[in-house]
């Protein structure tokens, strides 16, 4: 599914951390958009700025220590980066739902599941008790939780990780948001649960029509689940494309190397899996050129001198002076 009119559009987002002389730009010039019923994957290594980008774009990144230095993040026609805290809070949980990474720590241990779900619904609706309970029951059933009456009275520690993540998904979607932010929602789960949770999210997306911003470091999950993908490296988007195009013909050398270092069932096991040498440069040490240049096998003098701009190609966009040729 795709839509011409994006429901969420981020333009030229720049974020820095710290204060005074230690202030460092961690995210720079990031733009992306999500359409109704569409899933945009944001991939990258740990520390590339993907979570910070997404959480900042909806105002959920604590500030300080982070600061949004520029850009816009429009949900419909409101710019979230310019909303006062109260107005933002009205959108959180109602038009924006969030599912976090670790279901074991993301529910409050001292309150029942029922209280935590009721609170999410009560914050944005004026339903009667009976209507609210009915809606909660329906939502729990919808996310595949059986015996919901019993679950409502239980505490998080009485539920398994998979069940907790279903509760968190129910909590994020209970007010029917237009945008769902899923920050590595399957990373903390084992593989069979991962597949179940992904299938559930896909069904819910198709049914409720929300756009999903899916943050992950797992290219396999992106291939299964996303429509489009933006690859982040050292605080910038280096390539974005439709998922099929990106996997078929990655243009940025980083994307290419990342794909090459992903194990596949049909890869030759006698050859060691390729790795990307070196480290992601820390935020303070990013020079004028392309931040990947030091680790790039295709780097030329120009790569160290000037940072390449993100230019639109046939199937997407990439930021590289010497892109990998289309096979």
């Amino acid at each position, binding site marked *: 599914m795709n839509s011409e009119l994006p429901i969420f559009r981020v333009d030229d987002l720049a974020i820095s951390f710290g204060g005074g002389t230690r202030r460092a730009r961690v995210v720079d010039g990031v733009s992306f958009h999500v359409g109704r019923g569409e899933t945009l994957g944001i991939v990258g290594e740990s520390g590339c700025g993907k979570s910070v980008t997404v959480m900042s774009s909806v105002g*959920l990144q604590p500030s300080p220590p982070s600061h949004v230095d520029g850009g816009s993040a429009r949900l419909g026609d409101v710019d979230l980066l310019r909303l006062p*805290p109260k107005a933002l*809070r009205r959108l959180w949980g109602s038009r924006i739902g*969030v599912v*976090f990474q670790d279901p074991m720590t993301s*529910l409050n241990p*001292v309150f029942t599941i029922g209280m935590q779900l009721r609170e999410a619904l009560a*914050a*944005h609706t004026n339903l009667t008790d009976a209507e609210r309970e009915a809606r909660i029951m329906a939502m729990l059933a919808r996310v595949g939780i059986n015996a919901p009456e019993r679950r409502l009275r239980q505490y998080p*520690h009485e539920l398994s990780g998979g069940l907790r993540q279903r509760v968190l998904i129910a909590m994020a979607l209970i007010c029917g948001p237009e945008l769902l932010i899923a920050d590595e929602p399957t990373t903390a789960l084992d593989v069979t649960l991962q597949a179940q949770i992904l299938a559930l999210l896909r069904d819910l997306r198709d049914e409720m029509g929300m756009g999903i911003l899916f943050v992950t470091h797992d290219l396999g999950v992106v291939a299964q689940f996303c429509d489009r993908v933006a690859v982040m490296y050292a605080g910038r988007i280096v390539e974005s494309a439709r998922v099929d195009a990106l996997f078929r013909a990655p243009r940025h050398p980083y994307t290419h190397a990342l794909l090459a270092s992903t194990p596949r069932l049909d890869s030759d096991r006698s050859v060691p899996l390729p790795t990307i040498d070196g480290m992601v440069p820390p935020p303070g040490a990013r020079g004028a050129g392309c931040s990947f240049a030091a680790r790039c096998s295709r780097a030329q003098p120009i790569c160290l001198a000037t940072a390449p701009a993100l230019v639109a190609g046939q199937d997407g966009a990439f930021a590289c002076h010497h892109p990998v040729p289309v096979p």
Partner: protein
Amino acid sequence: MIRHLAGRLGQAALLLVGVSFITFILLYILPADPARQLAGRSATPETVETIRQQLGLDRPFHEQYLRYLGNLVQGDLGRSYTQKTEVAEVVAARLPPTLLLMAAAIVVELMIGLTIGVLAALRPGSRFDQGAMIVSFIGVSTPQFVGGILMLYVFSVQLDWFPVGGYGTFRHLVLPAVTLGVLGAGWYSRMMRSSMLDVLARDFIRTARAKGIPETRVVVVHALRNAVLPVIAMIGIDVGLFMSGAVIVESVFGWPGIGQLAWQAIQQVDIPIIMGVTLVAAVAIVLGNLIADLVAPFVDPRIRLR
């Protein structure tokens, strides 16, 4: 639950025997002689010897102790040397003032300590936080007699808002309770601050925020309920401490509680009273901790008593 309680009470009984034994030894090896103290300066050696025999202090240590323990098991704490009344009666008469002062002091501690701790945790590193932590540190480092005398001087002598000492009305209660509360609040504010900072950084706080509920609700409902657990354990310890340790404040303010009784008994080497007060304090410490343990599962359902 019942097994847990039974186990705890058994432990408490053992603890009391231990406390009574150690206190008894300490009092036995004390150079002060209660018989001489009772007889007065001008008494003849014969009189002193007679008193010693009457009190049973001429018997060997093990005999004295076993007799005390035997009486204790039957609920008999003995008779006071100086007041010629049952220790149980003397101590029971002093309990209500001490319990009242303890409750009032803990209320003051909690009101000041928790408020400051939470506010400091919301803005770590701010001027308020730094100031609050310095003040807390001064509070916990100020000796009680200094704090008490300062309060007396300012609010009784200079401003004449409260009586200089005594017991009976609410106005009598204010200064000793505020002295204990203000000085003790520093422990609570420091503990609350660190506990709150820890909880505010947890994932479920982010989840709560992402639901769009008001920030005050995030802090007061979601964070506070989790952060308050160490405070409950601390109240349990405080109950025990105030039962035995309000000696100085009770003396400064002439508060007729257990602490004052202990102070007088020590001066007069009134061994049965000293023993009685020590045992009451030990019971209070055990009870305070037991109550804290029993309350904890209601705050955090993950805690189960075994």
